[in-house]
């Protein structure tokens, strides 16, 4: 069990030498396949039995799954409903807006990727797995997409991403600030793109687009509110502190579904007569408030992690409270919360699927209503596809978060 070297040790070794790690002597001879099998699968009698049992069960299930996926499953339902899945009842001739947003995000993502990457360290195994995944992705896209136009549009995504990555690597440190500014501006820009200039009202936004937009709106707007709540919770003024604790605990105590019901049924009564908010806006408000409570707790954890000495040093040089918070405390606190924030965003993004149960036409809802007529009975296929959409985003984000954690060295639990 000691054979796996923890990544910290490698990092320490690399740190001791200023230059990037260079190949010295050849590493240990790779263990022959038979040796590897013996060590990892049959190292003892118990391990051997486990391998056989688990292997048998997994093989049986896996084979059955593959057989179902390729033989009995009807995937044409996905193909037929692809647009619904992605954007719901968004007017087809306004789809260029959605594509514009996609390209914007792709470019920013590519830039961010390029800017943060240091070395390309691709082992044979990594290259193989990534190659296999790329082939799989290409095959599924080939199945799903019909027509030159859509292929051009999707191809443009890849091209823009690759170009942005290269640009990011060239610019490196200089582009750090512009990239962050870009992300901050992206949010209002996307809303503008979708809504502005005689655009599409939020009521018509649907499908996966709706999930993404609600999640992003939720997280972006809840960020400042959450920080305010967290600061309030640490206030020395009892009235403020108690109020903030009350709000946070009350919001967190109930499930999101209950809060959505609240937003749907009770909120209209709380608003002054005559003020009517569309359903989607109320849902966004609820999601924002819900998220704020969790963000508040995360930020609180981060604030607690800032050493007392920082406060004292800031005071000693004469900073006012606001300046101290803004320039010294919050930057450190927020930096340490990045992994938890990303984890929270992933949760929030998954939770937007709840909108299906209160009547919104987003990805999960499409999955439930798509199996009709000639496609009835295809519920499993549609659900799997909807799940896949969420899974891809969530998985990518969690992998990115792990890399970020390693780079920032925030090993706090």
């Amino acid at each position, binding site marked *: 069990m000691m054979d796996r070297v923890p990544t910290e040790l490698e990092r320490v070794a690399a740190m001791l030498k200023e230059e990037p790690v260079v190949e010295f002597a050849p590493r240990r001879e790779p263990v022959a396949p038979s040796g590897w099998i013996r060590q990892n699968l049959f190292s003892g009698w118990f391990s051997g039995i486990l391998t056989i049992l688990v292997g048998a069960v997994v093989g049986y299930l896996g084979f059955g799954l593959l057989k179902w996926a390729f033989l009995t499953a009807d995937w044409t339902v996905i193909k037929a409903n692809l647009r619904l899945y992605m954007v719901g009842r968004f007017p087809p001739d306004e789809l260029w807006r959605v594509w514009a947003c996609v390209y914007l995000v792709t470019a920013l993502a590519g830039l961010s990727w390029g800017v943060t990457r240091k070395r390309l360290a691709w082992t044979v195994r990594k290259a193989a797995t990534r190659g296999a995944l790329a082939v799989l992705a290409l095959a599924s896209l080939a199945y799903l997409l019909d027509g030159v136009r859509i292929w051009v549009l999707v191809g443009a995504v890849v091209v823009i991403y690759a170009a942005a990555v290269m640009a990011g690597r060239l610019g490196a440190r200089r582009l750090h600030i512009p990239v962050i500014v870009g992300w901050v501006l992206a949010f209002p820009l996307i809303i503008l793109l979708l809504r502005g200039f005689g655009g599409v009202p939020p009521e018509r936004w649907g499908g996966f687009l709706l999930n993404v937009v609600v999640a992003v709106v939720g997280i972006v707007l809840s960020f400042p509110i959450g920080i305010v709540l967290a600061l309030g919770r640490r206030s020395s003024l009892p009235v*403020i502190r108690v109020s903030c604790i009350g709000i946070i605990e009350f919001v967190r*105590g109930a*499930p999101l579904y209950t809060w959505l019901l609240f937003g749907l049924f009770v909120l209209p009564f709380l608003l002054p007569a005559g003020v009517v908010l569309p359903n989607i806006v109320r849902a966004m408000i609820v999601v924002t408030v819900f998220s704020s409570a969790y963000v508040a707790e995360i930020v609180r954890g981060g604030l607690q992690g800032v050493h007392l000495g920082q406060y004292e040093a800031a005071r000693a040089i004469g900073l006012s409270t606001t300046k101290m918070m803004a320039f010294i405390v919050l930057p450190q606190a927020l930096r340490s919360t990045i992994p938890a924030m990303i984890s929270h965003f992933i949760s929030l993004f*998954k939770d937007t*699927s709840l909108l299906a149960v209160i009547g919104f036409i987003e990805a*999960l809802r499409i999955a439930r209503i798509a199996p009709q007529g000639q496609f009835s009975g295809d*519920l499993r296929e549609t*659900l799997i596809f909807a799940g896949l959409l969420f899974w891809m985003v969530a998985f990518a984000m*969690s992998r990115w978060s792990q890399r970020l954690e390693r780079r920032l060295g925030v090993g706090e*639990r």
Partner: protein
Amino acid sequence: MWTGPGSLGPRLAHGLRFTEMAGSSVAEVQRAAIWRNVRFLRVVGQLVFAVVVVWAFRELYLNLEYGVRRVGTDLSFDFLQTRSGIPIKEGIAYDPNQSYLRAYVVAVANTVRVAGIGVVLAMLLGLVIGVARLSPNWLVRKIAQVYVEVIRNTPVLIQIIFWYFGILFALPLIEGGLSLGGVAFLSQRGAAIPWPHIGEGAGAWGLWLLGGLVLAGAVWWWRTKVNERTGRPHHRVLWSLPVLVAVAAVGYAIVGDAVRLDVPEVAGRLYRGGFQLSGEFTGILVGLVIYTAAFIAEIVRGSILAVDRGQKEAAQALGLSPAQQLRFVVLPQAFRIAVPPLNSQFLNLTKNSSLAVAVAYPELSSVSSTMINQAGRPFQITMLVMATYLTMSLTISFVMNVVNRVVTRKGEGR
């Protein structure tokens, strides 16, 4: 409004010196600066804040009252006593002629049932998978990793709907359903498992069990003492368990009809006997358990890895076997680390039970949704529901806090 005067300090001191030179008293200085005085500002600030909050709440309440009156209902909770007319398919004794309050209680009981059983099962499954993720066996480790990565990143609602509509519905009906050795059954309509049936002699047998426990406890204590005295392995479990089982068996034979195993059977189109779980309950339970177990597995794995590496090395250097390292050094510390995040997961499972609305299991959220549609008092019902969930959350957190305090009692010299 934060602690400390900040930039106030120098100015205040300056004012002090100035007036001292002029010969005035300290009291005058304090009076002069009252609108900058920190304590004054704090009190006034809180007062203003409180006034604003109260005013805002009052405004909201007035709006609520007005709106509610406009649609013809009220803000009282009296409706709870009226007849509900809501059919609830499972749970404790209830019929639609009873009050809304009764329906609500039944719904809460159903939530507690699914959450309670769910927490236990999720904990067990999560423990197994968490340990599997650390296994030296590559296959086991990879399978566990795939499980966690797939389940964790998919929305729980999709999973619940998939298990219920996708899997359960695909099973045959009861008469053609699956059976496990003829004693447990699974079908589209739900499951039936053998369950102990309390018989006449249960009380008497209970006494026998008690005696057995006492005797087993004595054996346990005796073997511990032997180990301390001579150093021989105590094999406490190996000695105590047979004693308990023997006494229980003897008692069972003597007492007679104490406990029977009620084995279910397929009677036409229904199950008869045993413990029956409805399809809805099975669906939401399976979905919740599988989802939460993935997170618990990560907590288990994370807490074991979080135990300082040096601890394991010190235990290794002392010659403890891997099993002994785990048992005496790593696991006790890992458990302590795991308690707070486990608390979060238990809370999450309880709150996620609200998704049962998608599979029509009549727990708190689904029944209250129906109640809103029927009784039409969204505000009262929503408040009630939130208060109920809040109570459940606080209870779980309280229990976990007690557990936390118990395990961190040791080794805390601070």
